[in-house]
């Protein structure tokens, strides 16, 4: 469809139902933004689940987030931001027809994607080992089976493990969010019987946090993978010099997608790792 309409001075990339490149480009852009809107609303469901459980059960989130490694999460944020930067620069290179620069920047972006997934893998593996999983798979006791030489340096050693080992000091610094234990309807403790908060005791249903954590980061990870495949595709095409000042739409659109993946991580990072 595209190629056969090259006559009458139409550029090869211009499809027959568009009048000119501007119209085609702005149509593609609008289409992409609409698609990004659907992506945002896809994630919205998970953010709703997060908001509802966090507001109803802040104790779960405060307790469980110590199992996440803020340092790794922070590094991953920076990696993803940097790859977003190289991508944005890449769009500029495509617009100006700087082919070699474009190839280099796209390769760097792809590298960033690999770095992000690599760090994510390390984090997932640690969770897996410690049985910090979703639903009925949540089984933190399996942590004890692994207290051996095979522990990674990155592992979440500062996390509270079991009540008998005592809580880390940081847990005692949480007076603001967790309401005091008192009487209440079903599922709450009668007066005088509840443990006071801030002793590192494990609240009910901690697995909810890990369910949400794996859903959010997992869905985001899938998007990273998709974005990397797209970047790989335009990288191959840009090596052949497919993009220039007249036609760089795919680079621009893939860039938008990659920035959206970044954007979602910008919100996931503080919500999952930086709970206070």
């Amino acid at each position, binding site marked *: *469809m595209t190629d*056969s*309409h090259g006559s009458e001075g139409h550029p090869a990339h211009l*499809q*027959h*139902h*568009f009048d000119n490149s501007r*119209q085609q480009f*702005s*149509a593609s852009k*609008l*289409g992409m933004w*609409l*698609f990004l*809107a*659907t*992506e*945002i*609303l*896809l*994630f*919205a*469901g*998970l953010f*709703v*689940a997060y908001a*509802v*459980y966090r507001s109803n*059960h802040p104790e779960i989130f405060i307790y469980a987030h110590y199992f996440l490694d803020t340092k790794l999460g922070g590094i991953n944020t920076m990696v993803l931001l940097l790859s977003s930067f190289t991508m944005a620069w890449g769009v500029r290179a495509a617009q100006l027809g700087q082919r070699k620069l474009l190839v280099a920047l796209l390769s760097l972006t792809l590298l960033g994607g690999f770095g992000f997934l690599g760090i994510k893998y390390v984090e997932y593996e640690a969770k897996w080992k410690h049985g910090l999983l*979703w*639903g*009925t*798979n949540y089984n933190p006791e399996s942590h004890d089976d692994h207290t051996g030489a095979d522990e990674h340096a990155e592992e979440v050693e500062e996390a509270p493990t079991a009540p008998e080992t005592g809580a880390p000091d940081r847990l005692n610094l949480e007076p603001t969010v967790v309401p005091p234990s008192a009487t209440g309807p079903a599922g709450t403790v009668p007066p005088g019987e509840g443990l006071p908060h801030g002793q590192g005791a494990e609240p*009910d*249903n901690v*697995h*909810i946090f890990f*369910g*949400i954590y*794996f*859903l959010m980061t997992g*869905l985001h990870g899938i998007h990273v993978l998709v974005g990397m495949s797209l970047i790989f595709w335009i990288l191959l095409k840009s090596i052949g010099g497919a993009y220039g000042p007249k036609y760089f739409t795919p680079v621009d659109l893939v860039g938008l997608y990659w920035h959206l993946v970044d954007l979602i991580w910008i919100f996931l990072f503080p919500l999952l790792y930086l709970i206070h």
Partner: protein
Amino acid sequence: MSTAATTPDSNYLNVTKGALSWLLTLDHKRIGILYLVSILSSFFLGGMMAMLIRTELLTPGDTIMTADQYNQVFTLHGAIMIFLFIIPGIPAALGNFVLPLMLGAKDVAFPRLNLMSWWLWITGAFIAVASILINAVDTGWTFYTPYSTTTGTSVTLIVTGVFILGFSSILTGLNFIVTIHKLRPKGMTWFKMPLLLWGLYSTAIIQVLATPVLGITLLLLAMERVMGIGIFDAALGGDPVLFQHFFWFYSHPAVYIMILPAMGVISELISVFSRKHIFGYKFIAFSSIAIAVFSFLVWGHHMFTSGQSELVNMIFSALTFSVSIPSAIKVFNWLATMYKGRIQLDTPMLYALSFLFLFTIGGLTGLFLATLATDIHLHDTYFIVAHFHYVMFGGTVIAFLGGLHYWWPKMTGKMYNEKLGRIASVILFVGFNVTFFTQFVMGSRGMPRRYFHYQEQFTSLNQLSSVGSYIMAVAFFMIAGYLLHSLAKGRKAPANPWGANSLEWHTPSPPPFDNFDREMRGVDPYDYTGWKYDESIEGYVPVGGGDGTRDSRAV
């Protein structure tokens, strides 16, 4: 494909031949036809399920199937009708064909996405139907947890199918929004667009912004079943009511995905067959957008009895009432359009009148249900069933049939038998009311929906309702019969059989591959003064001569 021959008899139907030229076509008209065939097949399947339901309910207890089979049949009736038929019905089938023509454009903005949308539909439909063959779902089309996470039927499979169907719907909506924004011809401002385009535009907004939430809902449901993630499982500290919030955040707007394009079709039909300019154009246009916006604000009215909090119940109840305002604006404007018009009772107009009557009943009974106190009594009774069939069937399906008859000559180049068309539409109207008005009575007397067995006192009403459904079946077989017959033996359709003025009638029937042989300009779609009836071709021609498809004088 692109080097279409431009002989006078060349049109989009005969420009290329062979199965692949259809299955891989990028032409919006052919994709529209592919969709039409697909959704009508689903409609047939869903209709068969409906017949089974009504036959089973002829007597209390076991009539032709067991209770478990009954649960599966009503689930499949709902799931097929909603996900495979009504949601893609008007936008993907009629809309795909008509929208670029109405814009005087050559195609939609993204033809390849359009084809992909159809293939996704086929894939999703195939998976959904496969789940029927493997182990049909018995949860109801709403897939409520916790039952849907514990039943042994193939929920995961059908949910996968529906997820893919959602993608297909998103692509259609995305394509329509971009097309309307970017491909309007010179002279066609937003307020010179035919009102169907406003309907399709508002529909597309909902498709794009609501469907992803269905995606994540179904994904979470599948995760719950496969991995036991526990978000919706009360035993694991999850919240089953949250599932209903998720589900209805999409599925209520989805109701407007069904009705908005139908309203667009009716706006066209009423004006054309009253031979009068549409009354209150801007009100109808903006009320479409208003309905799209309101559609996102009322989902909680499905959950009045689900344990939703009182506070939210009250908010949603109040918001639900406000939806009636834009809907009523439309109805009043349609009536005002007909007032003192020269009404022609052709088949499409009979459907439009049916729509006015049935949709009004459907809409007004919705107000009973929006009232919290009344809803406690009526919730999950046959009153609900009757209400949404009046809106979905009496509204959307009737408008779809009206639109199908209206654009049939344009799509196929053939006229159907007008007399049979009118008779069938009247039979359908009678059958519909016998079936579903009875259900209002049953429901208000307390007959619960989705029940296999019922008390003796409801027997005669149930039988009456079943008889009505058989009458409808007769009408549908008649319609199928004369439409198929017209393909083979029908009279050749003139370019403009109804005297309408939107751009699709300015090109031959069926249209050529490139839609128009000239650059089109926007016109007032509701100004019929430029056309006069010509006995010799039994269609309308421009007052100044010609057949309106070659010159641009009518512009």
